């Protein structure tokens, strides 16, 4: 009881406990050991699996940083657990969409999923973002910067109203343009976070899972091709042991909950 209270207190204060730091050290040691055993894949895989479980344990304890989830994803990936790797990467991506390793490794994991889906059914979502539009990390510092820019733009416009010097007008309009662009980008990132809350991510954990038209084995299959392991979808509804999903291609159907990983916050997990 006192241990739990200490953990809660440590989390509230934002300082990791010694036990958590020890877990982290163990996870990193296991990962490093796995890398050292690369020439002996079976032993390396066991080490990566252990590292992944330790990282996941830390995540379950309430720690959530893009780096931690990237580590967890890498460990699952190298332990040949593609669905859990994708889930970890996607969680990290929500925290920091600018993390370069997360993006590259998630792309590699999705490529492997596509290799297992010759028909393309259940293929990963395609990023609709314009390639020229930079990603923004929804960090407090950046938001504060734009808030200050917004205020300065107002000051420049007011000054222009007072003295009618064109320079102030140009400054004010430039600032407001930047703020508008930033707001749009924030809105796009925020929409992903919101979407992830309302319709959590679901990753198919097994091969051969059939997407059905209803919540039961008696219902016909939505597609003759089963979903590939690692296919990503959004959770629309849960009825008993069945999940209603929407795939990135827009297909809606049901799968047994036992064959899927759901991105729920640690407090909501079973």
């Amino acid at each position, binding site marked *: 009881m006192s241990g739990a209270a200490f953990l809660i207190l440590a989390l509230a204060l*934002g300082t990791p406990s010694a036990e958590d*730091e020890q877990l982290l050290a163990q996870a990193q040691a296991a*990962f490093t050991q796995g890398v050292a055993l690369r020439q002996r*894949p079976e032993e390396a895989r066991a080490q990566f699996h252990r590292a992944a479980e330790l990282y996941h344990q830390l995540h379950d304890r309430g720690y959530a*940083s893009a780096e*931690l989830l990237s580590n967890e994803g890498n460990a699952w990936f190298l332990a040949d657990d593609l669905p859990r790797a994708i889930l970890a990467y996607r969680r990290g991506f929500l925290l920091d969409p600018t993390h370069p390793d997360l993006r590259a490794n998630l792309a590699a994991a999705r490529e492997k999923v596509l290799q297992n889906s010759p028909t393309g059914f259940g293929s990963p979502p395609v990023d609709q973002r314009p390639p020229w539009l930079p990603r923004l990390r929804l960090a407090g510092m950046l938001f504060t910067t734009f808030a200050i820019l917004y*205020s300065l733009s*107002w000051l420049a416009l007011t000054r222009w109203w007072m003295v009618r010097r064109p320079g102030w007008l140009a400054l004010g309009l430039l600032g407001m343009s930047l703020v508008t662009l930033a707001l749009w980008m*924030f809105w796009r990132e925020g929409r992903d976070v919101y979407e992830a809350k309302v319709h959590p991510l679901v990753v198919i954990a097994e091969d051969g899972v059939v997407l059905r038209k209803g919540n039961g084995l008696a219902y016909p299959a939505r597609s003759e091709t089963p979903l590939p392991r690692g296919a990503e979808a959004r959770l629309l509804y849960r009825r008993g042991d069945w999940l209603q999903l929407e795939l990135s291609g827009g297909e809606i159907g049901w799968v047994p909950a036992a064959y899927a990983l759901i991105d729920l916050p640690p407090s909501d997990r079973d």
Partner: protein
Amino acid sequence: MGPLVVLLSLLLHAEKAVPEPPFANRPLLYAGAIGSYRASLEATPTRVEVEQPIRLTLRVQLKRGQALQAPGRPDLSVMEDLQSLFYIETPQPASAHPAENTWEFYYVLRPRSVQVKDLPDIPFYYFDPSVDPNGYQKTYAEGIALTVTEPVRQIEVIPPVPLPAGPASLYRIGEGSTLLRQDTGEVWPGTFFLVLLLVGPPAACLVWWVIWQRLYPDAVRAARQRRSRAARHALKALRTVTQLPPEKQGRQVEQVLTTYLQERMDLTIVEPTPNEVANHLQRNGISEGVRNQIVELYRSCDAFTYGEGTYSAPPSLSKGAGEVILALENEPCLAQRS
């Protein structure tokens, strides 16, 4: 015809010369050898696993004289004691005749168990009528020691599945206790703070503007004047007047003033006289002082243009026009319009 008959008779004679081995007591291993022979064995390898093949060679050589009849290949499978120790197979070829008086017979033996310690002596039977015309002679090919081992268990070697291929970043991990953060991924403040952030800066700017108006009334007035587009254009045009030749400056100042009055006070006359300007200003409620100032300026411009009397130099003419415009902008009736 004659030689053929001679050859046939010779052959018949020769056949009759080979003695017939007796049927009585003929050994099962006897394979037709007539003459005197010795036998030897050769086995390769001598160290084998159970049921693995040993190539056995039975070599038979004529000891003396001529082979009256070439030996055949003895059938070792009739040897029950040998059968109990080995599986016996026949390879291809099964025999050879490497030299004139030497014959080789080949066998493949597979030891049945690790109990087999050697290959026993193999008897070779032949019929030598010069020794005993009614019986068979026997010689032994000396046995060979063998080492038979347990079979090595066949383990199917499955090549290890390599680690998944991926970018180099797959093997890179972040380190340090800074990983143990609790980021939420959200920085949107609450609705109240967001509204405050959106409305606060413009509200603060409004307050600033009001205070600024109180603290700097002249600056306010100047700004208001600058806000009059007609006045702004007129003042700008007056600044360029000085660049004209002196004889054209009076005319230009008058035109600038007239355009200003047309835009700002709806003066419709294209080339008004000073009196027409005075009347128009009066109708628009311009104070007498300013009105007189403008009329005087018009007269000055006319006088300068048409050379009547002595009047101010051109720079002071355009400066005076600027002051008159500012004075007009300060008139209450115009200030209300802007």
